[in-house]
């Protein structure tokens, strides 16, 4: 049926004559071109935003007229916009619950008590459902702020803002000048043990100043502060101030200023700390200053100033945009979009009062949700790496709050929500259809499954010309760049000592042989000794001869002979085992690819094809095949090109300078290209896709997540 003008229960309210309580104040505010009225309940510190039509009705609630009269008379004035009876009942009930009106009949106490019990229970639940942000209200600081204000009034005025702006400009200039010093080895300095202690000591102090900033700003702009207390934010005690009375301020910039005051205080402190840091000698003062900068600058930017989280930045944004309650209404608006367009519930009304608002709702709602999810996962994972069980508990709780409960609520809504009515079928169809489609896409329809990695072209086997015997370069028969066959002499070394050795050994051998011939017939004992000596000398000679042979270096495969330093090589001593030159294949076809350990088994077990792109000709796709796999993890990368410093993707251990030891385990795969690349300089980077058999995307994700989880927790 949708909405109805009449309510069955109208008779119960029609003849009531409620009156607005005395302490209720109404403030006018303009938002996005519309007038609104803020109803302030000074006793409970609650605020309600109502439309002018509602306000007109409220003002007539003075105990002399019945609701029925007010409704019908105001309705006459409003014409088409007359609220329905149900809406009026809702309004009066809300006002009554908020204690803004008193009635002329005693309320039904049983119901009242039931409800107050329920609210108390809910408050308790809300408090403990999110152990990452427990609140403990402590005192009413209004008189403190009242008395303190004269001393700091100048700071919380226009002049204060100008001063702050100047400070900030100066600070950012100085910071850019000293950027290198400031950021050098940041993580080490921040997370070292004694610094953490300092950080813990300074943090609450700065936060207290932050909250004072809020408090004084509200006071100086004419608001009130009635609640100050402690909050356990991720188990860290942090003070908080209830500055919600800023809601009644007329000027939106004033409201924004209240929200921004904390950030401004912190950033101001950070700049002052920068001055100290620059001026002070190394020591405790300097370290303290550095920490103040850290807290005031970094945490402000990441958390407090970030409008996507429900901290100060959010309230500033919502005040500047003039959209109160941005977060909750964004969610409601998104829900409305679903209900209205997907479920076909035409009677659901949009929470957006203007077009601009709607746009903000969409942008904010989606980005805040995504960001919140990321932060949630990040915090949980971070805590879990430190304290496994607490982290897992927290993560479970977070997942419960963010995924399971909403899901459960959603399902419950679909099956039993009253308002769905005739749209239930369609709502179910759309929801389950969407879930089914998603499931199908993720878990049923196979998708390309690829391991991406990088590698470098290698010369392949026998590509490097390695010196096998030490010697001086005697002759370079070939020019660099000549084509050579297998066995072509590439260069000749000489080693005169070796030659001499060979000669003398030869003489020695001859001597032994002659002696042997002489004694052989009569002195058997002597002959045997000589025989032994001959054999030994022959062996030694053979060894030296082979070394001499090694001085003539021959090509082990066909290709282009490349001599890196041809001019000064002649006559130089070359030690054994050194690469003197290269024989580069006419076509480079081999590449060495590094694959991280979590994918290596996948690559070696299930690779259907290998696709290679060469840097410099990235649009050319070349098929390849795996030649071999190194069985042990890499000790060092085959080339600096692959390290993150060299522009690659593998992080190397910075403490082992020049060794290119990967931080995480990697394995080497050698691949051979099946066709010729356009250009293939040695050591050029190749991008390699190992294509596995197709697998649904969801399963791929699960595999990746499992691998990540296992490597994070070493389980």
């Amino acid at each position, binding site marked *: *049926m*949708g*909405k*109805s*003008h*009449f309510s*069955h*229960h*109208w*008779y*119960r*309210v029609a003849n*009531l004559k*409620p009156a607005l309580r005395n302490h209720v104040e109404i403030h006018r505010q303009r938002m996005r071109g519309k007038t609104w009225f803020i109803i302030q309940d000074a006793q409970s510190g609650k605020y309600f935003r109502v439309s002018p039509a509602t306000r007109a009705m409220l003002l007539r609630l003075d105990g002399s007229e019945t609701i029925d009269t007010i409704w019908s008379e105001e309705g*006459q004035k409003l*014409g*088409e916009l*007359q609220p*329905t009876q149900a809406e009026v*009942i*809702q309004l*009066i*009930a809300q006002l*009554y*619950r908020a204690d803004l009106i008193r*009635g*002329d*009949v*005693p*309320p*039904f106490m*049983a*119901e*009242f008590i*039931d*409800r107050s019990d*329920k609210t108390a229970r809910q408050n308790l639940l809300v408090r403990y459902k999110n152990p990452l942000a427990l609140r403990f209200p402590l005192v009413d600081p209004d008189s403190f702020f009242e008395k303190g204000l004269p001393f700091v009034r100048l700071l919380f005025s226009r002049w204060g803002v100008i001063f702050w702006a100047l400070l900030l400009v100066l600070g950012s200039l100085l910071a850019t000048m000293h950027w290198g010093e400031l950021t050098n080895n940041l993580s080490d300095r921040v997370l070292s043990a004694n610094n953490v202690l300092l950080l813990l000591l300074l943090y609450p102090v700065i936060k207290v100043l932050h909250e004072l900033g809020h408090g004084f700003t509200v006071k100086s702009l004419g608001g009130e502060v009635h609640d100050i207390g402690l909050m356990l934010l991720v188990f860290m005690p942090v003070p908080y101030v209830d500055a919600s009375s800023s809601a009644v301020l007329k000027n939106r910039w004033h409201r924004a200023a209240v929200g921004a005051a904390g950030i401004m205080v912190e950033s101001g402190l950070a700049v002052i700390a920068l001055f100290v840091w620059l001026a002070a000698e190394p020591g405790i003062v300097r370290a303290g200053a550095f920490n103040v900068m850290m807290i005031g600058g970094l945490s402000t930017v990441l958390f407090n100033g970030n409008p996507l989280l429900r901290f100060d930045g959010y309230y500033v944004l919502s005040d500047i945009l003039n959209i109160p309650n941005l977060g909750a209404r964004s969610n409601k608006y998104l829900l409305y979009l679903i209900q209205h367009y997907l479920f076909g519930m*035409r009677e659901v009304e949009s929470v957006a009062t203007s077009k601009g608002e709607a746009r903000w709702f969409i942008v904010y709602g989606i980005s805040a949700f995504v960001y919140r999810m990321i932060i949630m996962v990040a915090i949980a994972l971070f805590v879990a790496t430190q304290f496994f069980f607490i982290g897992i508990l927290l993560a479970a709780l977070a997942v419960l709050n963010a995924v399971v409960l909403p899901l459960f609520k959603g399902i419950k809504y679909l099956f039993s929500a*009253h308002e769905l009515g*005739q749209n239930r079928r369609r709502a179910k169809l759309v929801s389950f259809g969407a879930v089914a489609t998603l499931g199908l896409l993720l878990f049923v329809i196979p998708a390309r499954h690829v391991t991406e990695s990088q590698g470098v072209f290698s010369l392949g086997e026998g590509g490097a010309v390695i010196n096998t015997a030490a010697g001086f370069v005697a002759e370079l028969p070939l020019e660099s760049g000549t084509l050579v066959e297998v066995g072509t002499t590439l260069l000749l070394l000489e080693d005169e000592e070796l030659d001499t050795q060979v000669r003398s050994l030869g003489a020695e051998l001859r001597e032994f042989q002659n002696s042997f011939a002489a004694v052989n017939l009569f002195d058997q004992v002597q002959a045997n000794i000589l025989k032994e000596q001959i054999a030994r000398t022959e062996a030694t000679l053979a060894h030296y001869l082979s070394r001499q042979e090694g001085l003539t270096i021959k090509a082990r495969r066909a290709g282009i002979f490349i001599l890196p330093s041809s001019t000064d090589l002649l006559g130089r001593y070359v030690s054994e085992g050194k690469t003197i030159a290269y024989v580069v294949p006419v076509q480079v076809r081999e590449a060495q690819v590094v694959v991280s350990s979590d994918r290596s088994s996948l690559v070696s077990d299930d690779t259907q094809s290998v696709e290679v792109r060469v840097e410099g000709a990235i649009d050319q796709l070349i098929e390849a095949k795996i030649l071999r796999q190194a069985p042990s993890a890499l000790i060092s990368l085959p080339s600096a090109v692959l390290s993150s410093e060299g522009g690659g993707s593998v992080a190397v251990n910075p403490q082992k300078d020049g060794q290119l030891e990967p931080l995480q385990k990697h394995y080497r795969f050698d691949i051979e290209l099946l066709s010729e690349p356009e250009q293939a300089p040695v050591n050029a980077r190749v991008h390699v896709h190992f294509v596995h058999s197709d697998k649904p995307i969801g399963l791929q994700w699960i595999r990746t997540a499992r691998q990540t989880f296992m490597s994070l927790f070493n389980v």
Partner: protein
Amino acid sequence: MSEHIPSILDRDTLPELVPAYEKTRRERTAIDALAGFLEGRLARLFRPIYQRKIRGLLVHAEAIREDLGSLGDDELRAQTREAGGVLRRNGLSDKATMSRFLALLSEVSTRTLGLTPHPVQLEGVRVLLDGKLLEMATGEGKTLVAGLAAAAAALCGMRVHVVTVNDYLAARDADYIKPAMDFLRLSLGVVVKESSLARRIEAYACPVCYCTNNELAFDYLKDSLQSQAQGRLSERVFSRFYQKSARRIKGLEFAIVDEADSVMVDEARTPLILSEGIDRVIDDEVIERVMVYTQQLEPGEDFIVDHLRWSVVLTDACQQKTEGDFAQVTDGPLLLKVLRQELIIQALCAHYLYKPNEHYLVRDEKVEIIDEYTGRVMPDRVWSAGLHQMIEYKEHCPLTEPRLTVARITYQRFFRRYRKLAGMSGTVAEVSNEFWNVYGLAVYKVPTHKPCARKILPGQVFQSKTQKWQHLVRRVKDIHNSGAPVLIGVRSVAAIEEVCESLSSAGLHFETLHAANDEHEAETISKAGQRGKITVATNMAGRGTDIALGPGVDALGGLHVIMTERHDSGRIDRQLKGRCARQGNPGSFEIYQSLEDPLARLIKPRFLLNIARFGLTKNASRFASYLLAKAQLKLERQHSKTRESLLRSDHSEGDLLAFSGEPE
């Protein structure tokens, strides 16, 4: 002023400070609901033990009764009253006294009513005293059970309301049990529609009061309205000094609801509304304008009639069209978009959903609502939000003034306020869960005293109504020729006219019983079991109607009941079935349906209907009959949903409206 102050000693006219005993309301949380659910399951589990316990009592009672025959009347009365007193002190779990008490009651019944209760009836009495829902097959003598249970409860010190579905039954049942009550010196009150205020106050104050659910709930509503009018607490405290009218109902202690499923389930779908004065929001001009306007809207194109939800849905196109058509309106109710649409929908309902002689009767230029469950006229009932006036306009009756609601209550809320609640019915199986969840009533089924001799003949399904009537007439003729009486159950007054036409043209003589000629109800019923009688009745001849068989009818196979279409609920069907073969008598029942019955409209998707039609041409009616049963089930489920949502909205609105003072 002084003459208005009644004497302090005049206790009867003194209003009480605590107006009446009522169960305190308690908020049901999820845990309560779960516990309740488990309790229900456990109770079901332990039912055999409970049953054994009670049967044990009865064996005892039987033995005791043997010796009571020799007691004098005064002695019997004294002992019975005394046993009641002992039970009042010791509680109902006092086995020895209870079995003695049951035996004494049984003896009282024998002496005063000439009827000795069967063991199953005594079992029923005991179960009712425990506040349970007694399921007893139709025609097993529930009236006696209720009467004895009421007497027993009254002797145990409770004020008992025996709630029946209509005035006729209230008066009849009270008359029936009166000798026993008189014997026990228990005063018996009866409240029917015509009872005056003084009589009502008197009747409700009696230890046992027979009344109808309607009168009872309305009287309660009026009482609470009256105490509400006293407003402030201070006024309430001193109200005894200037308040003149006394409460009608002294307290909600114990109710025995006869035909519990009808009262507590079927009727619970519509709340009771007490209205007075005139509501001027919608005047005649608006009604006329909307009715005229809606005549030109096309079904299917501008709106869709939803029979299942009993509503009309406007299409988007039509909503835009009305927007344009009413653009020039500058004031009045039609200016408001929400109200305008609501009125248009109401008007369309008046045009297309509500049918004369089916949902209402037009008598003396007045529109009277026919209750769909009992088939009776509800003369005081009106539809709300302009619908009644629209139907009056449609039927060219003078428009009555719309009335202003002053109090409202649902049966769910009302009956849950009783300290102890018990119910009886022959048809509760389908709704036993609802009884437990809503009223906390557990079902206890007693077997029939004698095995049931009802013959159920295979039903038939026809393509069209005409075919159905033709076959019906032929069948009635056959039975009539054999001499057995026939009861033809039809659904609406309109259908009666069709049946009558067919029967008359076949030359058959018959009696009719329906909302439009309810003056001769008792007479018609008393004759319906006579040899050779043909009676056509709506479900007025359903619940509580006891059709006594005439001499010699037994041998002819008893009363033959033909149902001519399924009703909204299977329970009504079974009630009609229950008119034959009562108390071990023979009887037979069969059902004639057609694919043009209103229920067939609920069959979706439509092609199933074509399959069923095709089946019928091949003489296979199984599928068609299945579809109709399915449609009935669908409707029942929809009604159950409506009741559930009514209860839920009652709860949530109560929560919301707590500020407006105590609900009635």
